[in-house]
């Protein structure tokens, strides 16, 4: 069982390295595809759904993605295993709790995943650390080309790649960057960021935790429009315009905080460290919030004896399904808070 192996590791895209990684945690590109001649999921009979699963599974497994991949039968996985994959961003919550035959092909380093029979027949995803959307696009295109040699995608010249939801129609592409914007949040400017994106063609949501709530100053920014704009145009706009400006803005806010409110900043960072190092019970929400402050401290050089990958590792390993799978037992919420506090305490005290 490969999931147990990956549950202890840190995903490659989350190792804290990569271009602009002090602000841009990771880049992700997703492509939505459907097979010609088959109904979309809401109208797909179980036996046809099983056919698609087999077809796509063998097509994807035959593609060389540059590393070892493995298949997971999502429908046959336990809820805990499903949750683990969701926590690691390998599959969506919708896919985890979906209906009928469905599965995922996952690369060992988690840089590539394919969801079969999610909202569309196929959802390919490529992840990289830092700001690397151009690289993500090149890679996902190659994989998509290889799969396309074996199956016929539903496509029309007018509408492009057909998708179950018209919001993905055309390129079927969703380009996202995961951002850590603590200084914009602390200086109260994050609301402006939200307001600005709410009337535009960008969507912002949280990176961790349930639903759309952004916890711990992490934000996911993605494109909304998929029709009439090419993949390259979207990626270029993100890479050359939108993301660099947000980076500048957050950097400026961090510099301002350092020069005019150093004590307040240090207090926040050191209090977070103090709590994490000594607490005996920590909820996942509190952990996210405190770790976010520590991450800022490390990035600003205010904390010197811990590196970003340790902080990132703690974000990942302290999520509920991770705690339970890595401890080989079901834990209720209070037990989880105890184990979580223990892991964090140990990890942060190591020198």
């Amino acid at each position, binding site marked *: 069982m490969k999931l147990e192996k990956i549950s202890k590791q840190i995903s490659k895209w989350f190792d804290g390295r990569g271009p602009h990684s002090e602000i841009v945690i990771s880049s992700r590109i997703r492509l939505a595809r459907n097979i010609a001649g088959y109904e979309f999921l809401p*109208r797909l009979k179980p036996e046809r759904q099983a056919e698609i699963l087999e077809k796509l599974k063998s097509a994807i497994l035959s593609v060389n993605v540059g590393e070892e991949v493995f298949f997971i039968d999502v429908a046959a996985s336990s809820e805990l295993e499903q949750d683990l994959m969701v926590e690691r961003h390998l599959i969506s919550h919708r896919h985890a709790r979906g209906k009928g035959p469905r599965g995922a092909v996952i690369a060992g380093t988690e840089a590539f995943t394919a969801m079969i029979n999610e909202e569309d027949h196929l959802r390919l995803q490529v992840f990289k650390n830092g700001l690397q959307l151009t690289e993500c696009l090149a890679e996902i295109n190659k994989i998509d080309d290889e799969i396309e040699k074996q199956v016929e995608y539903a496509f029309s010249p007018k509408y492009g790649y057909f998708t179950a*939801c018209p919001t993905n129609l055309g390129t079927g592409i969703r380009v996202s960057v995961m951002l850590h914007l603590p200084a914009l949040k602390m200086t109260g400017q994050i609301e402006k960021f939200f307001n600005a994106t709410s009337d535009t063609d960008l969507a912002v949501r949280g990176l961790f935790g349930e639903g759309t709530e952004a916890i711990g100053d992490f934000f996911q920014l993605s494109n909304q429009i998929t029709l009439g704009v090419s993949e390259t145009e979207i990626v270029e706009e993100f890479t050359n315009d939108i993301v660099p400006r947000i980076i500048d803005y957050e950097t400026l806010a961090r510099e301002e905080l350092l020069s005019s409110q150093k004590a307040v900043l240090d207090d926040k960072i050191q209090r977070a460290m103090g709590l994490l190092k000594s607490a005996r019970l920590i909820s996942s929400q509190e952990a996210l919030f405190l770790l976010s402050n520590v991450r800022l401290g490390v990035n600003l050089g205010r904390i010197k004896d811990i590196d970003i990958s340790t902080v990132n590792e703690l974000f990942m390993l302290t999520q509920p399904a991770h705690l339970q799978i890595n401890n080989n037992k079901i834990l209720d919420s209070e037990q989880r808070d105890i184990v979580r506090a223990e892991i964090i305490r140990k990890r942060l005290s190591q020198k």
Partner: protein
Amino acid sequence: MQCQRCKDQTATIHLTEINNGQRQETHLCEMCAEHEGLAIKSQIPLNELLSTLLASQSSPKEQPVAEVAAEDEKSCSSCGMTMREFQKGRLLGCANDYEELADSLEPIIEKNQGGNTTHKGKVPANAPEDSKKQIKILNLRRELEDAVENEDYENAAQIRDRIEHLQ
């Protein structure tokens, strides 16, 4: 939240100060905060920045939503999907729906896709030659529109010739 100083604008600057163990929160609007010397002066206003960046993308045109009862009941001959069902589940039943329910779907697509209605970008390598040609023509038509809009008639004439050649 209202600004504590002017009691008019929305407070966007939230300052928490701890003096001698006493926690004090201040909520101010940007102008008041600046007045009090609290705000960090923004050198690049983010909202302005994003709206300029995105103004280059066409904004969604206002479209009356086609909600004629008869249209809602029309169903796809391949999968039986109706607009009524789509509006509930937000998902379509098959690729044919795009063709058969086009009258009702088009405005929805246009609204969700920033006014765009035709594909631009990747084409499957194994798409029939016919479709590839169609896409070329569609892309050229778009270029032609842009050229005319920019009053670049020389370029427009060339594009028109290329379209005629393809047809």
